[in-house]
């Protein structure tokens, strides 16, 4: 207990005497990113989406011949697709659901009156997504190597694909979280995850679909990401400009739309 006397006049010397001030910006963003990452790793549903499902798909479809993945080792086909899925699960599905409920429960509102600027909150969210993705990539590539994966290509190109994919999916996820009701975001984000898992060239090669459908599906961000990663990692191709272009297009449009339409409460 604090013992205090006085009438609110005079010099402020008590325990609650005002001493306002914002923490340094890098410290605020680091603290926010750490908290967001902890919240994500503590959430069972999120872990199912970001870790369990990609891992299971990789292990299951590499070991059991269910889907015809074309010539070569199944794991060489599957790993790029599962990496693309991992990026989508974190940057799009997980981020959309988490942010949707933060908006619903006034977390975004409360943080908006804290010293942390809005762009700082967004930077922290991005950092948290990137940290999670690094953990996912480390885990999934370790499993893939254990299953006999032999990747090719330039790691810088792979990184460029992953970063642009993250930007595109983050834009789409935040657009959804900032405009729809939390429950609608939850349902829609999971549905989109499922549809893109099947129709986005993640585990089922796009050439299994009718030709006209293939062209449309190829324009989806997850298809562009898995196709680009596959070109590089499975076939040792150079820079997949087409896929990078599609991802960049999605990123620009989705981030701009999220910036314009996102509502904080």
């Amino acid at each position: 207990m604090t013992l205090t006397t006085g009438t609110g006049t005079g010099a402020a010397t008590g325990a609650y005497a005002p001493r306002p001030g914002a923490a340094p910006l890098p410290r605020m963003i680091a603290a926010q990113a750490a908290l967001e990452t902890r919240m994500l790793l503590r959430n069972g549903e999120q872990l199912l989406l970001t870790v369990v499902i990609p891992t299971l798909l990789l292990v299951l479809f590499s070991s059991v011949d269910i889907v015809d993945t074309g010539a070569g080792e199944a794991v060489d086909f599957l790993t790029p697709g599962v990496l693309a899925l991992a990026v989508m699960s974190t940057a799009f599905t997980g981020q959309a659901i988490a942010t949707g409920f933060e908006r619903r429960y006034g977390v975004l509102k409360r943080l908006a009156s804290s010293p942390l600027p809005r762009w700082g909150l967004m930077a922290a969210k991005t950092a948290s997504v990137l940290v999670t993705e690094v953990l996912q990539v480390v885990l999934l590539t370790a499993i893939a190597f254990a299953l006999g994966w032999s990747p090719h290509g330039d790691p810088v190109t792979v990184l460029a694909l992953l970063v642009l994919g993250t930007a595109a999916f983050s834009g789409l996820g935040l657009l959804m979280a900032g405009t729809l009701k939390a429950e609608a975001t939850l349902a829609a984000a999971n549905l989109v995850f499922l549809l893109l898992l099947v129709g986005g060239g993640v585990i089922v090669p796009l050439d299994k679909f009718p030709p006209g459908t293939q062209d449309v599906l190829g324009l989806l961000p997850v298809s562009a990401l898995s196709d680009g990663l596959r070109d590089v990692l499975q076939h040792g191709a150079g820079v997949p400009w087409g896929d990078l272009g599609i991802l960049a297009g999605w990123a620009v449009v989705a981030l701009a739309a999220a910036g314009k339409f996102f509502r904080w409460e």
Partner: protein
Amino acid sequence: MRSEPVVPVVHVQALVKRYGAKTAVDGLDLVARAGVTAVLGPNGAGKTTTVETCEGYRKPDAGTVRVLGLDPVRQSAELRPRIGVMLQSGGVYSGARADEMLRHVAKLHAHPLDVDALIERLGLGGCGRTSYRRLSGGQQQRLALAMAVVGRPELVFLDEPTAGLDPQARRATWDLVRDLRADGVSVILTTHYMEEAEQLADDVAILDAGRVVVQGTPEELCRGGAENTLRFTGRPGLDVASLLKALPADSSAAELTPGSYRVVGEIDPQLLATVTSWCAQHGVMPDRISVERHTLEDVFLELTGKELRS
């Protein structure tokens, strides 16, 4: 005596805020000085809209708002570190623990309070590893209060800080508000508890239909506190004018609701005797006679014609 700073902590002039066709705040003027200011009013009076405009959440449709001399929207970056905000509900990650969230908010500030001491002070130590969504309503509210003060702000906004709290938790909140005031922190609180305003506030602003209907110290609003109220019930429709003639000149008498009468004035044994003998002369059995101080509740009822807790 209270110090009167040149710049009021909150200065609202002719504020208008509409949501679609509905006008929530309709030309509101409010000046809050250092100390505790209570914003009192029934649901829908515009309390939360006014406070949230001061916090920078809403942009005025008309009028000006200055908080600590700053524009809450355009100078938000400057203002935010200096204020503490307690929302009416929510504001915490559903999976976060109480101490975790409080420590986080502390980290956003340069010179935060000692988090452990604050946790103990507000009785949040028992929350342990429980996540926010599983805390009781009272615990959630105390956490929101702690989050508002942990950054050592100059000015704290509390939106219905004790709504739904049990008496013990309410008293703990009141004690903290008194300590904040004693240490030089200004507080703007919205409430629809009269007692809260009477207990805590240096200044009370009563809102109704988006305007401040009256503002002053609780004593001023209750006319200095020297005047008292005598209430009694009897049969409806008594001749109040006749009763008034029997009373001293500076008194007033009224039938508030059928059969419920109120006399306002300097209530002394002589006046009580006057009332009872008037009743005797008119064959009235005055029931439930009570003598009480004129309360903010009465002021409110007179000004707005509404019960506070609607």
